[in-house]
């Protein structure tokens, strides 16, 4: 079973809590709470700071010493993210839209290819299965900067450079190994006897998969897809080297482009960072139960 944050946490070494408190460990407990709070504040401060910056008037953004409270609030930066200088759509909003398309379609593709493959790997005796699975995983461990060189040349040959399709294909290829590994874990948990029973009832193997196993896999598929979505959404290296034009470019390189000039509009950077991060945080919240399995490609299981 994939480790779930919410469920697993209360099962921790709690019972030894009581005796400790009784032995007068409350002073230590206070120290622990203070430490934890300090760490939490340190971890969350940058996020709060960027949120605060995104609603500050420009003169407060650059104020020295920094203003933590009592600054003038404005939503202009958020307006600038979506509305261009002369009205109409801004370049940033186009790139956000591109991100939605690229991340969405590549995730769909990775799921469509990965889930059936995971099922087949889980159910059938495939020749050299272990080697094959390890090979699939190993494609994820290549440094992106290294892969991007031949991909760049290849795309230039076939005309996929600076196209959304090119990005979609490479992201799908990066997400397929992950989907296969994570989904194999989920499929393994559905007893194959269910399918056997269905086939005794006259279903074919394919029908048994479609009617019996697949419905049981839906939560797992959803979690896996969200991880793939987050990866594609956040990806930067391929996005910056394989695209160049404004109407293809996804949001990460577009946001990075905001710091190119001599002066940086940090208010705008903060607002676009906040807008860009929001979907990820929502998605991350949705898959929090599958986080450990997800971030480690299912390598850490219990």
């Amino acid at each position, binding site marked *: 079973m994939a480790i779930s944050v919410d469920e*697993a946490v209360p099962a921790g070494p709690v019972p030894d809590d009581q005796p400790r408190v009784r032995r007068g460990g409350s002073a230590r407990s206070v120290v*622990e709470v203070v430490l934890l709070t300090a760490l939490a504040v340190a971890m*969350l401060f940058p*996020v709060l700071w960027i949120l605060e910056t995104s609603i500050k008037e420009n003169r407060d953004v650059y104020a020295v010493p920094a203003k933590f409270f009592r600054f003038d609030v404005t939503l202009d930066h958020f307006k600038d993210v979506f509305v261009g200088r002369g009205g109409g759509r801004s370049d940033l909003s186009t790139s956000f839209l591109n991100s939605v398309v690229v991340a969405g379609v590549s995730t769909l593709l990775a799921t469509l290819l990965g889930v059936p493959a995971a099922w087949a790997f889980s159910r059938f005796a495939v020749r050299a299965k272990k080697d094959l699975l390890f090979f699939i995983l190993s494609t994820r461990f290549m*440094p992106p900067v290294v892969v991007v060189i031949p991909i760049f040349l290849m795309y230039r040959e076939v005309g996929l450079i600076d196209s959304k399709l090119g990005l979609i294909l490479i992201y799908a290829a990066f997400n397929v190994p992950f989907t296969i590994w994570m989904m194999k874990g989920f499929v393994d948990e559905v007893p194959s006897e269910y399918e056997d029973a269905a086939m*005794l009832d006259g279903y074919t193997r394919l029908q048994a998969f479609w009617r019996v196993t697949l419905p049981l896999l839906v939560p797992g598929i959803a979690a896996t897809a969200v991880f793939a979505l987050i990866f594609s959404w956040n990806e930067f290296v391929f996005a910056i080297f394989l695209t160049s034009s404004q109407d293809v470019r996804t949001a990460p390189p577009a946001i990075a482009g905001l710091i190119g000039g001599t002066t940086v509009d940090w208010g705008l950077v903060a607002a676009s960072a906040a807008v860009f*991060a929001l979907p990820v945080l929502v998605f991350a919240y949705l898959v929090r139960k599958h986080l450990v399995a997800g971030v480690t490609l299912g390598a850490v299981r219990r």
Partner: protein
Amino acid sequence: MTTTTDHPVQEASSTPPAPGRTRRRSDRRLAAAFISPAMLLLLAMSVFPLLWALYLSFTDYSATRDAPAHFVGLRNYVDILTSDQVHQRALTTLLYVVGAVTLQTVLGFSIAYLISRRTHGRGLLTTLFLVPMMLSPVVVGLFWRFMLDAQFGVVNSMLGSLGIGQVEWLTGQRTALLSLIVVDTWQWTPFIMLIALAGLTAVPNYLYEAASIDRASEWFRFRNITLPLVWPLLLIAVMFRAIEAFRLFDLVYILTSGGPGVSTETLSFHVYKVAFLGFNTGTASAYGILMVLVVIVLAQFYLRYLNKLKEG
């Protein structure tokens, strides 16, 4: 759900479907039909490019010149392995990987330990701590570039109000690498924390109960129960992080662009410069192949050590 699943499982397993010849053949066909599309995509997008890079690594090809590639044997590899520049980049990368991974392991484990000892609000705490890990490296890099700005950055502002002088975080030779380590630690401590928390919560309670009957001290319990059980899991997390840190590119690109000078130029960033600024495609490919080899070889050794640890 279909009615078929309501059938008692026993009935099915006691009379397994006769593995007739036709069924087995159709199974194999189905497996092939389900696996091959995914494999084709991987072959086209991972294996083929990698083989191409391998071929290019033996040539003097440049992506900007129209000249055909000349076979130069192992010259690219020899050049890289004997280059002082590369040795320096390797040292920078090593410093960065060791520094960042050590820092985030210590911090991540500490946070996980503290969280595991709380009774209330652990789900919420865990979720809050996870936020940095979910953000895009671009966003994280920008956050910190803004906060570490020498003139109006909030970090220097706070140092100033504490009476400590200004620090040139991203423009000083030494502090730039330190900043990189700090930012990477900020983003990835949650990863270690998550894995450590999974390990800590998996420690069976009866071990603690037995220890408390023996009136074992807190430290004894930590040293002899908690740590040994979490250790293997923690080592896996460390490996994941080390591989990721070794190939780090985006954060360097956003935060320092390898500067000042070359003080934060990691191997990944150097490959990028060779490939996309110098357009020495052949050399860059050889470079990349070497990096992949290093990851594979080191990971193999590490995994072997891990297995030994598990058996021992």
